[in-house]
């Protein structure tokens, strides 16, 4: 029989409650077959980059002849592979990682749109939140737990594989790759702000920074929209509007009607890519359309969206919502 004594949980352990919330959320989202298909697709993208880099590097090492003939053109194979590498952006440079994270990120957006209702919507819709709020949790514990679940999903598909690619390219190229980047003392710029680096690899900084940006923005936005809409279909519709329709509108306004480049700030995905690219040291010239707003402006827009979402979340996850 249980002995009834007042329960005391040490303050340090109280924060550990975030982990079970996150694990339960991840486990539930993994049960969807469609999620696994999307994970599979993102794995294919990763493998394309992984083996693409490997293949090009291997091919470069196998060219014994000084020239080869492609149709009527004779060319130096090493140069040809170099051109291919640059054209495909599989050269271990900043653009490689930006392209990879952006590609994976678009997959993450779909996964999250599908998982949102399972992660959070069900807690409101089915009343499971009553069980959570009956436990010794603060509101932020619940939010942090769910946010951690989203962060795990985002980083497993973006930051982690990008870091694997970074390490792989270093091994394929030479140790110089790591050393060279480590020696980039200069400064990394995020918009007009310049952060001096005294040792960390700027590419590493860029990958982690871009991953962190996606994690924070997507987690908060997903929590807020799931809390608001609660069901899968409306959630997908809203995310499609935000990440696809707004993109079309922004492109039409800026590239079509030649409005001010700031109209592109409507496209939140572009804002994330812009800020993420800046973390990697890439400017607006690396975009297909060079008419881009400043990265600092994009960062401000993203921050405002996140703050608005956090305010909404804070109001929603009050005790009264349990019966709402």
């Amino acid at each position, binding site marked *: *029989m*249980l*002995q*009834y*004594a*007042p*329960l*005391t*949980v*040490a303050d340090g*352990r*109280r924060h*550990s*409650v975030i*982990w*079970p*919330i996150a*694990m*339960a959320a991840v*486990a*539930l989202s993994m*049960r969807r077959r469609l999620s696994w298909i999307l994970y599979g697709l993102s794995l294919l993208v990763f493998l394309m980059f992984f083996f693409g880099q490997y293949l090009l590097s291997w091919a470069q090492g196998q060219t014994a002849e000084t020239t080869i003939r492609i149709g009527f053109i004779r060319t130096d194979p090493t140069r040809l592979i170099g051109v291919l590498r640059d054209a495909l952006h599989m050269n271990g440079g900043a653009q490689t990682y930006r392209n990879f994270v952006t590609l994976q990120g678009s997959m993450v957006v779909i996964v999250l749109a599908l998982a949102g209702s399972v992660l959070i919507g*069900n807690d409101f819709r*089915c*009343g*499971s939140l*009553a*069980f*959570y*709020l*009956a*436990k*010794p*949790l*603060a509101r932020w*514990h619940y939010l942090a737990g769910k946010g951690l679940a989203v962060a795990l999903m985002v980083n497993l598909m973006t930051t982690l594989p990008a870091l694997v690619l970074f390490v792989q390219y270093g091994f394929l190229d030479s140790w110089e790759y790591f050393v060279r980047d480590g020696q980039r003392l200069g400064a990394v710029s995020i918009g007009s702000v310049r952060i001096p680096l005294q040792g960390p690899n700027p590419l590493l900084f860029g990958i982690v920074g871009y991953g962190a940006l996606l994690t924070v923005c997507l987690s908060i936005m997903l929590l807020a929209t799931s809390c608001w809409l609660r069901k899968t279909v409306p959630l997908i519709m809203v995310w499609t509007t935000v990440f696809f329709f707004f993109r079309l509108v922004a492109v039409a306004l800026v590239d079509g009607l030649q409005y001010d480049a700031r109209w592109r700030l409507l496209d939140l995905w572009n804002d994330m890519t812009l800020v993420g690219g800046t973390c990697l040291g890439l400017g607006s010239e690396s975009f297909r359309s060079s008419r881009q707003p400043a990265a600092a402006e994009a960062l401000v827009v993203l921050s405002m969206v996140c703050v608005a979402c956090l305010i909404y979340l804070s109001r929603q996850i*009050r*005790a*009264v919502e*349990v*019966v709402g």
Partner: protein
Amino acid sequence: MASADIADLATLADGEAILRILRVSKWYGGVLGVNDVSLALGPGITALVGANGAGKSTLMRLAAGQLRADLGEVRVCGISPLRPRAKAIIGFMPDGDRFYEDMSGHTFVATLAGLHGYSSAEAERRTRQVLEQVGMAGRSERPLRNYSKGMRQRIKLAQAIVHEPSLLILDEPFAGIDPVGRQQFMRLFRGLAAQGCCLLVSSHELDEVEKLTNRIALMAHGKLVGAGTLTDVRDLLDQHPLTVQITVREPRRLAALLWRISDVRGVEVRDEGEVIVRALAPRRFLQGLGALILEERIDVERLRTLDDSAEALLRYVQRT
């Protein structure tokens, strides 16, 4: 009857009260869910009785810290139940039974145990122990979607007691439970109460409530109309005519004599020496009846109250 009077009956000293509700009101928009309710509970089992919409669930959610009171205050061991510290000593079994349907019962309870800050090994140990207590050992590995209503109730109870709470709030725990399960639950509840736990149990199953405890809190239209033992509550309801059946050798003589008692409102003589008397102010009436029987040397074979049950009280409260 003023709710303050009712509160006085149940008021305990500060040190004794585990749950203290003081003049609490809760609105849902323009609808008053709970109206100026005061109640103090110590260790033991108290049944919260009332019809649908009486405000039982709202009061329980206020006590469990799931709702914030618009007026008044709720304290659990002196702490607001909205604070995580208080929730560590509250066990709450909500009325709804929608879970994560893909999860197994075992995982569900273990996950919620983890939210109390236990290590995974400790959460696992407690989960196994508590599933055994609620009769779910060996059948908790299936997904929750395959559970019957009774099994869901058991899982809900398991998650509520997994952290050894001092205050256990159970919203309709007997709903969907088979008779064997009810006995099991009652034994468990009595065991917990014996160890000093304060249990607040709401139920529509009034027969079960009467078997479980003699202490009830009666709610109607958002107000607490009575709290205490069944008889105490009955006494509070002075305007509720008490019906008493008296079996005597001379029923007609007794019927005539009964009119001497001022609280008597009706007397009926039935066959086989039975007199049915209806009276107000039950305690005063019963004292008067006792004195009359002694004075007139009436040979009473049997005397019993016909409506001194929770169900009768509930029916009466609903009508008023």
